[in-house]
């Protein structure tokens, strides 16, 4: 029988940071300069946290405003999603007082007006509220509009690269 201990399976080529994909209602935290990505944000929001002191970075992809309004993983909702990411960042060695946030997404692509204010703008409001309650400043944001976005968080620098089909690429 062969034994696999991982030593013969090194896939990463030198100099190429590891890439981790974050799905909807998921989060990831890295301390080893990985690149965290998430794609296809419509009314969803991507919240990126970065602690330059400990070089810790994390990204969560939230879908709905408040956990009280539904069931499912904490990372699915704006309020508990931000909280779970803060906790996981701390567990990985980051300190809350040196954390910085960047946020993107929350667009209003579709207008079905009888539903009151859009989910995108409510998501954004709750993300801002929860970050403020935890004293984490928002250093950059690309929120709203009527187009989708994909994100790439470079944990080596804390840069959040926002790409959209119609607006090109921006770095926060």
């Amino acid at each position: 029988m062969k034994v696999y201990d991982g030593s013969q399976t090194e896939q990463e080529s030198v100099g190429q940071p590891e890439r981790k994909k974050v799905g909807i209602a998921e989060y990831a935290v890295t301390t080893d300069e990985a690149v965290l990505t998430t794609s296809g944000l419509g009314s969803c929001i991507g919240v990126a946290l970065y602690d330059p002191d400990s070089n810790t970075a994390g990204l969560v992809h939230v879908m709905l405003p408040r956990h009280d309004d539904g069931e499912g993983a904490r990372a699915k909702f704006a309020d508990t999603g931000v909280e779970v990411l803060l906790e996981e960042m701390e567990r990985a060695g980051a300190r809350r007082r040196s954390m910085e946030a960047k946020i993107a997404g929350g667009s209003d692509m579709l207008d079905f007006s009888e539903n009151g204010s859009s989910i995108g703008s409510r998501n954004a409001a709750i993300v801002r509220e929860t970050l403020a309650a935890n004293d984490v400043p928002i250093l950059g944001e690309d929120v709203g509009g009527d187009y989708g976005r994909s994100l790439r968080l470079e944990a080596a620098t804390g840069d959040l690269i926002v790409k959209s089909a119609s607006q090109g690429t921006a770095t926060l």
Partner: protein
Amino acid sequence: MKVDIQSLGTFNQLAHEGAEQATQSLAQMTGIDAVVDVTKITLLNRDDVGEELAGQDFVGVQFDFEGALDGDTVLVFESDSVGPITEALVPGGADGEMAQSSVEEIGNIMMSGFIDGWADYLGTTIEHSPPEYIEATGADVLPPAPTVADQPQVFVFKSQIEWVGESLNFYIYMLPEYDTLAELMTDHAEPGGDAIPIDKLSVFNEMTTSGTEQAAENVEMMTGIPTEAEVTQISFAPIEDVPKQVGDDTYVGTVVEFTGVPSGYLLVLFDEVSAQNVAEALMPTEPDGEGLTEQHKAAIEELGNIMTSGFVDGWANVLQTSVDHTPPQLVHDIGQAIVDPLAAQVGQHQEHSFIIESEMRTDEIEFSSEIHALPDEKELRQALAELEVDRADQTDADVEQIF
């Protein structure tokens, strides 16, 4: 057989965890970084199983399993992944038998994880056969779907796994025998819960098929291009998996909200090439300018409207109710970002969603279109409860009524 929402949710979760387990085994063995993208349960015609694999070459590892659940399961790799997989196991690479045995070995470990996950949850044993290696094109890589008397439709559990950074995909298909699945689902159903008889879900599928045929006829009438309705299926997945059904490519199309019982959202999507081709078929003159012009978009909006009407009328006829819809809103964006706000709307009231999907194609020009509907789950159940099964044949929407 009846299924309730609870047991559909549980079984979906099982399939998802099994796929996660299998993916972790793969990562441990090879260092391959892969993530489970989507897991869903689909009810569809047995002839349509694996339609989405058409035209691609695959290798697979197939197992029979029996016990609390009987059937076949297969792990499917895109052929291009065989090289990297072999390389991961045998540095320096290998070909022929060596490559085959690498795939078998990985398949064996992954699928043991998958099946053990189910058995653990069910608190019982499921035995599986040794792996059988398969090479085939398209749906031929899958075992024949089980046959059941008087039941042309089958349940398929399907997970899509993405190899991060390699743009390669793996798939796990599980095709359970109807009887053992029915028994298990009944055992896991909540007494007096939200049960839906399977025959009604099947009828609903048939009516969606006729809605799609109607939509295809409308396209043909407007464009003069012979258009065929293809696969129609109804799936069930957690709400956060719904946007992933469409993926990261850019699409053009229309979105409407429909009201009535059920209410919900309906999307007509074209890939950019299809959108351009079909729009030009509608234009009296050559477009002004390159790419997707405003003329193209106006044509797509009109087409989306006609397709939506055809589709929704197919439902309304069977349900003998009126289903109205808002004027179409044009969308042109990353597929997943288009679906995301709709899934979020539906997700405010429910944790899982039914997804109705159908496709149409033409042979004449490169053109394909997808229709996705997200109905409110409670209202869909109510509509099905009121549905008389023998009404399914009354779906011939009258073209004259639409125009």
